[in-house]
């Protein structure tokens, strides 16, 4: 399949959500939330790791590459507002202060699905991007936080 599609990341996620949302809703009706969540999360994580590896190839698999990725792809086209707090060769800390991905899912009343098919990608993405790096994040806008506190650092 072609990966070279010239479109913003936010629009791409919206287009994916168009078909994922009814699919997940039907799965939930049939099997309940828990098993559906598990099956979807496993696949989404695998896709995110692949995407992380691809982005490492494009931006470089280091902290500077992560920042470029966040600012260019995630925030590109106004998808989110990012405030960088700290950056060294071994760590990157930024807060997302506005997230239009979260706004999209919240407008649909589907923030829980947003967590599942959007936010939950990030940890797996880092594993694919550079397995020496890790992400901790104590809150997200999607889950009701005032910001998303992304803290990347090189593993000990």
């Amino acid at each position, binding site marked *: 399949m*072609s990966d070279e599609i010239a479109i913003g990341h936010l629009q791409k996620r919206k287009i*994916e959500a168009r078909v994922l*949302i009814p*699919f997940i809703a039907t799965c939930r009706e049939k099997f309940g939330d828990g098993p559906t969540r598990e099956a979807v999360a496993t696949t989404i994580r695998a896709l995110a790791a692949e995407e992380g590896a691809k982005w490492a190839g494009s931006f470089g698999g280091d902290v500077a590459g992560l920042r470029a990725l966040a600012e260019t792809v995630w925030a590109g086209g106004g998808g989110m507002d990012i405030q960088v707090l700290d950056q060294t060769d071994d760590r990157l800390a930024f807060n997302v202060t506005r997230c239009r991905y979260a706004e999209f899912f919240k407008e649909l009343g589907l923030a829980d699905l947003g967590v599942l098919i959007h936010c939950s990608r990030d940890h797996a993405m880092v594993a694919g991007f550079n397995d020496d790096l890790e992400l901790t994040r104590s809150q997200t806008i999607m889950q009701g936080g005032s910001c998303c506190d992304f803290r990347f650092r090189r593993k000990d």
Partner: protein
Amino acid sequence: MAGVLDDYLVDPRLSLLDKTRIQAQVLVPVLRALRAELGKDQADAIVRQALRDWSKALFAAIGEAIEGSPRHKWATLQGALNEVSAREVEFEIKRHDEEALDIDVTRCRFAEFFRALDEPELGALLICETDVDIASAGGGEVSLERAQTIMRGAPSCTFRYKFAPRHGLPDRGRPARS
């Protein structure tokens, strides 16, 4: 500028084929994971129900928002779909008059994409069934029969529309995809 299919296309700058590719890129792995858990028949039944319900509701809502007769709704919707899909198909109009519109689609890049993925049924759900849901917007004034499609392995898609008798000028909507 707002278009009649904005809710369907999401981003009008993107071709319908690329939009469908993006959806397949995420849907196929999820579907295959579900097949591994539940078996193919059950997983495919779920995706079928989910995508059919979604598509019917989406085009019914779009059709309701278009003013005019059912046939006008169909023509408006089908015309908008043709604009974004005509580049992906080759077709031949066999008959077009007040009573009927017969079209054979002889090449379809949507079908080529999904058949290469070995997921023709998913392609039928995401692409071919759209024509059925748009025909439904025509109420009792437009009916569509399609005995075969390229997506399902036939050499052509045989669109056969029938129109109820009416007064006034004919609408120009016509399908342009399998």
